[in-house]
């Protein structure tokens, strides 16, 4: 079963980022074919050296590093979403595959189940 999780929300504002992360780690137990997509404002979740303590938020970014441990290797990021936001796609907190919007859409259409956060 090819399952995809799409992250479209900023970190820290609401709980979306953390809920999506929990879902990814949980789902990784059920399928070998889990892909995680970051697009639109979701790319902000991968920006390095965040200091959420300054707004009393939990620091969830280190948890992304668990992706390897949970065999979540397929992480796609929309390159255009990064450039539009002045984010350097080569300086994200985890290794990712950068895709152009067209490629990203193709990858999405290969999925059987998709959950958006």
């Amino acid at each position, binding site marked *: 079963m090819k399952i995809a999780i799409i992250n*479209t929300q900023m970190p820290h504002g609401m709980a979306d980022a953390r809920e999506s992360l929990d879902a990814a780690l949980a789902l990784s137990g059920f399928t070998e074919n889990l892909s995680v997509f970051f697009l639109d*404002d979701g790319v902000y979740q991968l*920006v*390095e050296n*965040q*200091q959420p303590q*300054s*707004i009393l938020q939990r620091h969830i970014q280190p948890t992304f590093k668990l992706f390897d441990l949970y065999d979540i290797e397929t992480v796609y990021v929309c390159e255009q979403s990064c450039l*539009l936001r*002045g984010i350097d796609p080569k300086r994200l907190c985890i290794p990712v595959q950068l895709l152009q919007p067209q490629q990203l859409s193709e990858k999405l259409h290969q999925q059987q189940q998709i959950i958006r956060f």
Partner: protein
Amino acid sequence: MILHTVKHSPFNHKSLEQVLPRLGQDDYLLLIENSVVAVTVTHELSEALNELALQQRLFVLEPDLLARGLSSSVGNLVDYKGFVSLVEKTDTTISW
């Protein structure tokens, strides 16, 4: 004199775009939470924001920038105390 606060990212919400034409001559604009990203990259609202900054009427809540691993050279950075003094200095506040 009104303090306008905006909290949404301009990339997925129109609030910042909508508030700019409503600012009075000496009103203040304070960006908080997700809207702080508006001063971290050039986009179609940057010109208006730079204009406000030149007049010392654009403020950005620094803890929200730090939380997101971002920085900005546009607008006056304030902490929470600064936020409070902006509220004290103005007659009323509208949050968009």
